[in-house]
């Protein structure tokens, strides 16, 4: 980000941390968390520690980081190097990222920024080649649309269902946030999950993502030496958890052993096995496995700004998820006028206002100008 852009973004971010300090949520055991800042100029500072809300907020207004992170882990000595921190446990967290959902709308709002000359090409279905220097390497910048958000919401709702129905987590222990760009973050306030190590969390991720489901777990076993199978439903029945999910999809219940057996006869065991595997992956939630399994991660702090957009990591009531509009509710920067030079024609909506700009320069409210600068689609002029 050039100096002029940095100056604009810093001003808008500082004003946010000054005016909207109540948005910033502090973690439990604040003194035992590791904090980290990403800087507007570049680079990251980790291993920071604060004792109180006041200290955190003073740091934000003074430093104006581009992004603020806090560890999901609790350490005895949060400022020491990683192997000396003395890990005491970590909150369970999940990340649903719209860009991992392979949504069909994405190419229609993805801009390409050339890796060599930084020229910006507007969305296009054609194979990429920079219009200015013909390079084929580019960074992809997406302006998420309401369909992207709906896609992430669908995954979030599926995760909430797993957390409550299968894992028995209290609804009140689930904190859901819009990530500040194109997805949702979950923070789970359930201390029994804190001691779990990385392999245990990885198993949990497998469960939620529908990875590794065996046909045997619904009672279908391969007959030795052939591609046939025999069916004996498990003692615990097919009424809960994954067994129910798969049974529902196969349209079977505890009385359908013969029906299922005939079905497998037609296709063979191997084909049935892959069918069950794809059903499970389809019914699973698309969460980022790295985020949940990493027990030393610094994770975006609730209520802080995301420098990919200038939007806030904003709390979303899980009962109101359908009506939650992040482009309205998470857009909390000011609206003083800022002149920008646009690198490409753009269209987007923020704070209930639709912008469709094809001119090279424009005067925009700060929230919109910062949005485009953060996306790399405009420069402050």
């Amino acid at each position, binding site marked *: 980000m050039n100096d002029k852009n940095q100056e604009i973004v810093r001003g808008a971010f500082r004003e946010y941390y000054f005016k909207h300090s109540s948005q910033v949520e502090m973690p439990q055991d604040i003194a035992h968390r590791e904090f980290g800042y990403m800087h507007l100029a570049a680079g990251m500072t980790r291993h920071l520690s604060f004792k109180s809300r006041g200290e955190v907020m003073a740091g934000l207004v003074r430093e104006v980081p581009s992004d603020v992170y806090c560890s999901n882990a609790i350490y005895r000595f949060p400022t020491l190097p990683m192997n000396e921190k003395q890990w005491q446990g970590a909150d369970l967290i999940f990340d649903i990222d719209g860009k991992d959902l392979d949504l069909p709308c994405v190419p229609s709002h993805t801009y390409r920024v050339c890796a060599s000359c930084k020229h910006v090409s507007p969305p296009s279905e054609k194979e990429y080649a920079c219009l200015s220097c013909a390079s084929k390497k580019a960074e992809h910048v997406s302006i998420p649309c309401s369909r992207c958000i709906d896609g992430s919401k669908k995954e979030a709702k599926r995760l909430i269902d797993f957390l409550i129905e299968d894992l028995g987590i209290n609804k009140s222990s689930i904190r859901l946030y819009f990530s500040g760009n194109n997805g949702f973050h979950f923070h789970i306030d359930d201390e029994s999950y804190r001691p779990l190590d990385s392999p245990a969390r*990885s198993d949990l991720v497998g469960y939620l993502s529908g990875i590794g489901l*065996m046909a045997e777990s619904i009672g279908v076993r391969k007959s030795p030496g052939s591609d046939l199978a025999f069916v004996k439903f498990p003692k615990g029945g097919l009424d809960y958890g994954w067994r129910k999910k798969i049974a529902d999809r196969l349209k079977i219940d505890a009385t359908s052993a013969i029906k299922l057996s005939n079905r497998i006869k037609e296709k063979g065991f191997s084909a049935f096995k892959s069918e069950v595997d794809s059903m499970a992956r389809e019914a699973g939630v698309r969460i980022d496995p790295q985020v949940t399994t990493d027990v030393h991660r610094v994770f975006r702090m609730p209520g802080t700004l995301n420098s990919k957009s200038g939007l806030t990591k904003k709390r979303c009531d899980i009962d109101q998820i359908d009506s939650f509009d992040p482009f309205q509710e998470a857009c909390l920067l000011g609206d003083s006028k800022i002149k920008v030079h646009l690198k490409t024609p753009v269209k987007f909506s923020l704070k209930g206002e639709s912008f469709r700009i094809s001119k090279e320069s424009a005067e925009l409210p700060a929230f919109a100008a910062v949005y485009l600068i953060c996306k790399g689609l405009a420069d402050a002029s």
Partner: protein
Amino acid sequence: MSIRVGPGDLAKYPFLNEAGEYLRQSGFGWDELEKPEMKEIIDTAASRIAAGTAGQVNDSLERYEKEILVFLVSLILVKSISIEPVLKKYSLSEARRAEKFLTEDLKKQTDPQKRALFAKIFEDLFSLKIDVAENGRLFKVKVTDYLRRSSHFHEQEWRMINRLVSRGFVFLDADEVVRLVRNELAILIHDRVAKMNIPQMPAAIRQKADELRAELAPKVQYRAQAVTEYPPCIKHALEVMGRAENLPHSARVMLATYLLAVGKPVDEVVEVFKNAPDFNEKITRYQVEHLAGTKGSRVKYSVPSCDKLRTENLCFATGDCAGIINPMQFGRKRA
């Protein structure tokens, strides 16, 4: 309801604190191990250790006074042999023996007295709370208690997705509940031996320990062979690289840590990535050196486990992968 551990239970579970209490009350002292009538006890203990080291599980059950002494003498002998693999194998065989009895007893869970005893064993020794499920046929443990243990098992059937899970509980039958704590039971026995402090070893024990050491030492040493072929996950990653297609970051970490671990120099590993669509030699070299532990955090990264690779969709297991938990074990055989 008060819970009484009877003599029959002590014979099966001599590691319970009540067994030590029984010995104290009976006035047992170290010097008694020198008595000629103890020879039978020492011999039984020695043969159990030899069998345990060979992977056998002894499930014979003598009268409880003898079982408690045999267990105690076995611990002293293993301590005295002082070869870690012998201790590990012995601990596991004792754990499996107890596992067998626990499973049988747990299946008789209709007796409330027994049920309470087992709940107590699980809670006291392993901090694991077990309840009988509403249908009365299965047991239930909390999801977090399950995950903490099962994630260290290698078999796919123990992944939580292959379990009956509902409202925060995992439902298991008696065999599975006991299997869940087998490793902890082995650790408990291992730690008890490791922490044992024997002021003066009786001569009869010393002599038996020397014999056992000479017999067992050569059996527990083995040498690993060099890797002959790449595992399928690595082959797949190399093929993707060969086609100059994009490989996710996690797959690159897997590939680099694997190649480094089998002894490839950094230059050669960097070369493997030169086909990547976003290849930048400077960045790649730094990252490979970081993984090798020569740059940055100075921590050498290990090859991700098969479990982790499965979660990241990087596992392409074939039949040759049976029984391995890390790509590094692929193709390695005991000499």
